[in-house]
């Protein structure tokens, strides 16, 4: 098996160059996908027979919620790689994921509340999915708080990596406990925000939106990754070239 690709992944200048070359392309495709999906979702898709046009909020809520989780798992995987193989690049990637994930958690919460108002009659309902999303936001805040509170960047990398891994083990447990808790208090939920049954015209914009959000995430991570790599590199000559 050829492992050169793995070694290249561990080399900051190589990754920096890769990120610099590819971020605009990935970002461009992401923007295109999101715009087309928006048109498909807002204009082409027929309205839902139950939720009417309100169902269209799924096109922004679901991808945001998904991105918030994907960012957390990517962060935890990168953190684990960084801890095990002592890879600066992996720690940088983990650091790059956190703020993006946190912002999309906020977006998922906000869009969920806006969707909840017409559906439940109130902005906030202790729905298990919204509650889990809120707890995920707390985990992100903890992660970033820990990182900010440790002065030495390498120490911060390692400590926050341990927290990210502990968090990712905990996320399914939190999810399970929140579902358990919700089943005890079923009457609190007036109307479940169930997924509307989707026909093809409704579905393709959603799927395209997922693709667009994923590519967008990759592009923004690559930009942030470059910043994190520069911060961690102290003397290497490639930095001189990169910032010239």
């Amino acid at each position, binding site marked *: 098996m050829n492992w050169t690709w793995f070694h290249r992944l561990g080399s900051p200048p190589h990754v920096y160059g890769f990120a610099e070359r590819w971020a605009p392309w990935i970002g461009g495709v992401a923007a295109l996908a999101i715009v087309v999906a928006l048109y498909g979702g807002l204009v082409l898709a027929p309205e839902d027979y139950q939720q009417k046009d309100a169902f269209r909020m799924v096109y922004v809520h679901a991808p945001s919620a998904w991105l918030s989780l994907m960012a957390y798992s990517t962060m935890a995987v990168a953190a684990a790689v960084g801890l095990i193989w*002592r890879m600066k690049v992996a720690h940088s990637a983990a650091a790059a994921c956190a703020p993006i994930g946190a912002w999309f958690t906020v977006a998922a919460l906000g869009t969920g509340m806006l969707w909840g108002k017409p559906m439940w009659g109130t902005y906030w309902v202790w729905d298990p999915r919204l509650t889990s999303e809120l707890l995920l936001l707390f985990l992100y805040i903890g992660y970033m708080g820990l990182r900010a509170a440790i*002065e*030495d*960047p*390498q120490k911060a990398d390692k400590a926050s990596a341990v927290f990210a891994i502990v968090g990712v083990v905990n996320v399914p447990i939190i999810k399970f406990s929140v579902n358990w808790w919700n089943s005890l208090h079923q009457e609190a939920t007036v109307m479940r925000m169930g997924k509307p049954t989707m026909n093809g015209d409704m579905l393709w914009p959603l799927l395209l939106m997922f693709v667009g959000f994923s590519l967008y995430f990759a592009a923004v991570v690559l930009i942030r990754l470059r910043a994190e790599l520069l911060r961690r590199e*102290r*003397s290497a000559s490639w930095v001189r070239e990169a910032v010239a």
Partner: protein
Amino acid sequence: MLTVSGLHLWRGDRHVLRGVSFTAGPGQCVLLTGKNGAGKTTLLRAIAGLLDPEEGQVSWRDAPARRSRDVFHAELAYLGHEPPLKGDLSARENLKYSIGIRRGVTREEIDGALTRTGATDFSDRSVRMLSAGQRRRVALAGVLLTGAVLWLLDEPTTNLDADGQRLVADLIDEQVSHGGIVVAAVHHAMTLDAGNVVNLELGST
């Protein structure tokens, strides 16, 4: 045999260790000198495995120390700036617990070590009440009790009177003559009887 090869270490933005290498075999004493901030403490902590060097390696008995950490630590005694003692416990209690987690230790052994370092008189007083020099004597008794082959001492004579400084030199001489290895950071030159002393000045490269 302790082998340190090409250690590079940064603290924050500062490149503290710039490729430090040396070896120390049985019966050898390495005295680390250098200005404040030259990296003496950093080097000792890196050897002990408390700090993770960015580049380079510490080997013990021809194997990377990091890979067989517990074996390495069982043969190592580290004494840092501050004697690792609990203020609320007496000297004797401190040693009973801190040595006990390493190996089975008897009361007689503890008494012997305290006598050797001249700490018997105050061994039952709570450490909080002791002077800095007295604490250091207790900590030195702890180093003796570990029975470790490799000693890493960070400015072991700090706070000690002339008598105590002589004691440290004697202890190092003894350890070395028994085939042990000592790596010590010192800020003034130390007169040792042992023949095999290497001086390593840090911060000059």
